[in-house]
């Protein structure tokens, strides 16, 4: 006879992409690179979701250009997700995008109990609207304070300062850290970071992984809400990459 048909109760894990679709994203195939990177990351993300019995991974996406709008409005189980291509054109209403996410993170519609949400902000430029007001609005939501907030800078024109503000205080240690904007200066690195965020980070937020004593990995006294996994080793360390932009 089979084991009774029961399972560990699980909690939703909301994973939200905030994607810059301003006109500059049309240049050098950046928009296509982002669409590809997200699409390619989905099978791995679905696999991580399957391996984490404690989580129900739900994906949404916001696009922002002249204004912000839900690109994927319904929180969709990652296993059922079909990525529709984003299209570039317009300016950079990043603050507006943060307002949209802020609305989604209040309860309701947000469930009463959940795992920490994961927010991934991807941009190649400067906000053209009131970013500060949008961020302040977002950070008033308890779920946004609890969220794992990551940022990916595409190319060298991204405003690293606003991306750092989105993530939170800059870590004191030097070098690459997931608590700094991840700089993707080519399509391969972008794909690696998207894959990392959608697998390793989702895994860490949904089911605790092994802990080590190192301070950056979140020891017992770590202030971190969710200890973030190591960044993937990339062939070209972005901080060393000063060559021309190749997309």
């Amino acid at each position, binding site marked *: 006879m*089979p*084991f009774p048909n*029961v*399972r560990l109760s699980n909690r939703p894990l909301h994973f939200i992409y905030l994607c810059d679709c301003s006109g500059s994203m049309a240049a050098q195939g950046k928009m296509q690179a982002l669409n590809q990177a997200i699409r390619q990351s989905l099978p791995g993300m679905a696999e991580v979701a399957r391996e984490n019995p404690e989580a129900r991974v739900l994906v949404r996406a916001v696009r922002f250009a002249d204004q912000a709008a839900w690109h994927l409005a319904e929180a969709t189980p990652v296993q059922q997700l079909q990525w529709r291509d984003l299209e570039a054109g317009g300016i950079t209403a990043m603050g507006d995008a943060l307002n949209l996410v802020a609305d989604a993170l209040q309860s309701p519609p947000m469930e009463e*109990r959940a795992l920490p949400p994961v927010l991934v902000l991807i941009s190649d430029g400067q906000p053209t609207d009131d970013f500060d007001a949008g961020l302040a609005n977002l950070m008033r939501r308890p779920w946004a304070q609890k969220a794992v907030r990551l940022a990916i800078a595409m190319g060298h024109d991204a405003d690293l300062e606003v991306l750092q503000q989105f993530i939170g205080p800059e870590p004191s240690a030097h070098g690459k850290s997931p608590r700094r904007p991840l700089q993707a200066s080519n399509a391969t690195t972008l794909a690696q970071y998207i894959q990392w965020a959608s697998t390793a980070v989702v895994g860490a937020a949904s089911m*605790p992984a*092994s802990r*080590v004593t*190192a301070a950056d990995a979140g020891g017992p006294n770590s202030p971190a809400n969710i200890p973030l996994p190591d960044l993937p080793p990339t*062939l070209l360390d972005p901080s060393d990459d000063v060559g021309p932009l190749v997309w």
Partner: protein
Amino acid sequence: MNWLLPEGASLPFAGLEQPLRIEQGLGGGSQGQVFAVQLGGERLALKWYFPACIGRDPQLRERLQQSIRLGAPNRDFLWPLALLDPIPGSLGRFPAAAGGFGYLMGLRPDAFVGAHRHAGGDLAISLQCVLKACFHLAEAFHQLHLKGLCYKDVSLGNLFLDPSSGGILICDNDNVDVDGQSSGSVLGTPGFMAPEVLLGQAKPSARSDLFSLAVLLFRLLTRHDPFRGQRELAIRCLDEPARRRLYGDEALFIFDPNDPRNRPDPIEHSAALITWPIYPAGLQRLFEQSFGPGLRQSEQRTLTGQWKQAISLCLDQRQLCSHCGQETFPAADAPGACWSCGTPLPEPLRLRLPHGLVSAAAGNELQPHHFDPLVGEAIREPLARLVAHPSDPALLGLQNLSTSRWRGRTTSGQSIELDPGKTCNLSALQQIDSSAGAILVLRP
């Protein structure tokens, strides 16, 4: 996945007489990546570490060498077999892999799947096989601790199950260390860590292993978590600080016999309420011990030998409900009702052995420890198995799994002989003298 080592390449390594062929990448985690490899016709697995991981854990190499020297506690561990260092310059084209090292181990057969799938309700497995897996787990840690070692990071993520047999494989053995040396940097996995380790008051040890083992056994047997009850419902965002309270400062066993404040919620935690009553009181008491007094006093935790004893008794008591066919485990002195359909359980036909009593249900097995109390509980090599007749499932027989001929007699006094591999009908059997000792049929 971006693989550290190129799939399809043959690479030389220090100490290997022939090059190692990298067949394919199998997976990656926070420490490194695992590859299927081939060495002189033998297929093995290679774990290759990220330089960052080696940097964080300076004693890693020494620990691996020690484990390789000591050898695996038993065959349920995917134990390190050999340390692999690159030949200087040979990995020049693979900068992410250079500067690292790895180790070879056995390749996990396809039949074994991650234990998290069981916890997620995504695995068809019988209660008997889950109990067998739990027995193997207790036995594996028994052997590991007897060698003076501790594992440090017991969790669902490091365990694989064969759902058809209850066999297990324990992987990620690279934190294993001599108990008390605590040279490594690993602390364990939240949700499985002993409270004193989670709260930073102690280093992982064989005693903290015992706590993590109890959590893992509970999760396998119930598909639920021993501390997620009412107190979990009060947590909105289940993040690190919340987990530290739930499993550390405020940990309270959901079935604590003296404190009902953290009982499971009938809707959110239904798995625990359905599965916990399946198991006999003797087994439940061991959890109450480990998660009650054992929560704060590590010397109070259930020992591996006690788990082995209670789980093997539970397997001996297995009985199929005559109404719904579900597996039940009533104690001989407390028959009760089927946990699944509520039908009262009649007293079953039992086999009396020199050191045990086994209920007659298809699939139950007679083990060497039922005949010889000195061998210790083991379930790997049964001497006999109860089997249903292939064309008449109602007819139950006893199959001789030994290599010698057994002799017995029927209730009418007739002598019979039972050759290895043969099965005799239980309904007419009075007694059989096996090579290990007498088997007496007790009718209710």
